[in-house]
């Protein structure tokens, strides 16, 4: 197992390297530079700024310089937010996004698994159809549709929550729900399908035949097998939640990393974009690894192949 984890981490290094290189050169091809939008700046000022930050050097030299700084864990100064380094900004903003993302991921997993279990338990009855209809509805309500609708209904019409902002403790409810519901619906569908596949297996019949209480068969024996596709989906789901936060943070005006990423991409804030991309990619790779380890813990067959 430990060997497998080390192997995966080693594998992640070239992947990260490719991502960093690709993004580094890609953002340089974006027309315009980080200082073009400074209103008062004359051509000389921009040239001076570029020289100050080393942006007038050959591209490859800049790239090597960036890698060198990166190896020391430094991402350089932000071009847009004077006096701030990218490290400082990331540390501040990522905490907010992480809080939101984790809340949404937990909510999605809990709601999805419960809904899926219930839908499978009701089978082909009317309740089963209603519950699977609900989960299909969930995947048709993406965050940018659901978020504004929730605000309209719960914040503007009934005034249960603040429409936007990130001040009081209850401000996390609406954005987390907005982010979570789509993934909860996917998980519910995965879970329902997996449970109904397991129900017809031999071991279920054996467990029932030897007189185990139906609840134990359902929640212990079947659950342990049926939850596996859900666990392996959690990796991609975490990635989706992170990128989904671009939209949700914009809708709810949350001072998190997602909103920041989009604006820094539009502003050509090169170092900031790199910082965000590196952080996102690292998160996503980490979550995928975590999901794979959890899967191996659940399934000895998978663990053997590692």
């Amino acid at each position, binding site marked *: 197992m430990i060997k497998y984890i080390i192997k995966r981490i080693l*594998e992640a290094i070239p*992947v990260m390297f490719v*991502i960093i290189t*690709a*993004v580094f050169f*890609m*953002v340089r*091809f*974006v*027309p315009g530079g980080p200082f073009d939008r400074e209103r008062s700046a004359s051509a000389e000022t921009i040239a001076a700024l570029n020289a100050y930050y080393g942006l007038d050097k050959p591209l490859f030299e800049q790239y090597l310089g960036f890698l060198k700084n990166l190896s020391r864990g430094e991402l350089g100064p932000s071009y847009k937010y004077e006096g701030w380094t990218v490290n400082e900004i990331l540390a501040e903003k990522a905490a907010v996004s992480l809080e939101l993302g984790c809340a949404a991921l937990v909510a999605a997993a809990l709601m999805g698994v419960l809904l899926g279990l219930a839908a499978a338990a009701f089978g082909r009855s009317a309740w089963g159809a209603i519950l699977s209809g609900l989960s*299909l*509805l969930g*995947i*048709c*309500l*993406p965050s*940018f*549709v659901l*978020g*504004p*609708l929730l*605000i*309209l209904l719960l914040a*503007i019409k009934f005034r249960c929550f603040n429409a936007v902002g990130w001040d009081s403790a209850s401000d996390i409810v609406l954005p987390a729900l907005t982010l979570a519901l789509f993934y909860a619906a996917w998980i519910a569908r995965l879970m329902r399908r997996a449970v109904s596949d397991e129900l017809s297996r031999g071991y279920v019949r054996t467990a029932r035949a030897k007189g185990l209480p139906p609840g134990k068969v359902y929640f212990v024996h079947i659950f342990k097998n049926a939850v596996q596709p859900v666990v392996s989906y959690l*990796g*991609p789901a975490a*990635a989706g939640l*992170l*990128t989904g936060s*671009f*939209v949700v943070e*914009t*809708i709810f005006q949350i001072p998190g990393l997602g909103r920041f*990423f*989009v604006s820094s*991409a*539009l502003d050509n804030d090169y170092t900031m*974009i790199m910082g*965000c*991309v590196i952080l*996102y*990619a690292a998160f*996503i*790779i980490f979550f*995928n690894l975590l999901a794979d380890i959890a899967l191996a813990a659940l399934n000895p067959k998978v663990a053997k192949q590692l």
Partner: protein
Amino acid sequence: MNIDSRESFAPASAWRKICSDRVAFFALCFVAVCAVLCALADFVAPFHYAAQDLKLGAVPPCGEHLLGTDTLGRDLLSRLLYGGRISYAVGLLATAVAVLIGVSYGLLSGMCGGKIDAFMMRVVDIAYSLPFTIFVILLMLVFGRSVWLVFIAIGAVEWLTMARIVRGMTLDIKGRQFVEAAEALGESKLGIMLRHILPNLAGVIFVCAALTVPSVMLLEAFLSFLGLGVQAPLPSLGSLVKDGAEAMEDAPWLLVFPAVFFSATLFALNRIGEALSEK
């Protein structure tokens, strides 16, 4: 001996599956009607999508403007039709791109087998775990936000699942007798791939493509919502939802109609795909 065990793609069986499922049948009718109306937006839309009437401002649904107007006095129904046209076009074209990449990649991987196959699939595994949306956002910035690039960029992201499924099926079909027979008859590898394996995959590809369409439309709307997809004044369903969200306190209809239309479209497309994938 059953040499040619083709389960070749049968439109008739797909049609039967849809017809036997009442919800899916209505979903198909809904999508067909919407697609035709949107495609003919130039003729059926009561106004042009950019025709403003600033004096009018945002009015709620009324006789002249069935779904009301937006803050610039533009007719919402017309903008929905034009926006739907963009979304459907993205859905179809980006899916075509995804099918093209995914099928060729999966076929190649499955046909080569062995180490090449293992490597190619490892690449797909890794690509699954990449922040692709970020790449699409950066691509949009690099190339300016042209509509055509939206198609290609989205298609280039959504091919992974297709590649996996096609590769699995290729491996399965490759071992069947009719392929061995074709090999014995001296058919080239390329010929086997195109003449014997590909036709057997048509059904699977069709179903997978049907399920790709809604997820592609979703990604396009996501980008347009962030202001990175289709550019104003051209509407897309994503940008209409965004405009509606900005004006929802004073003019809730601007949010509700695009949101309902978009979600209903996604629901219908997903439901059709689901019905097709039933055994």
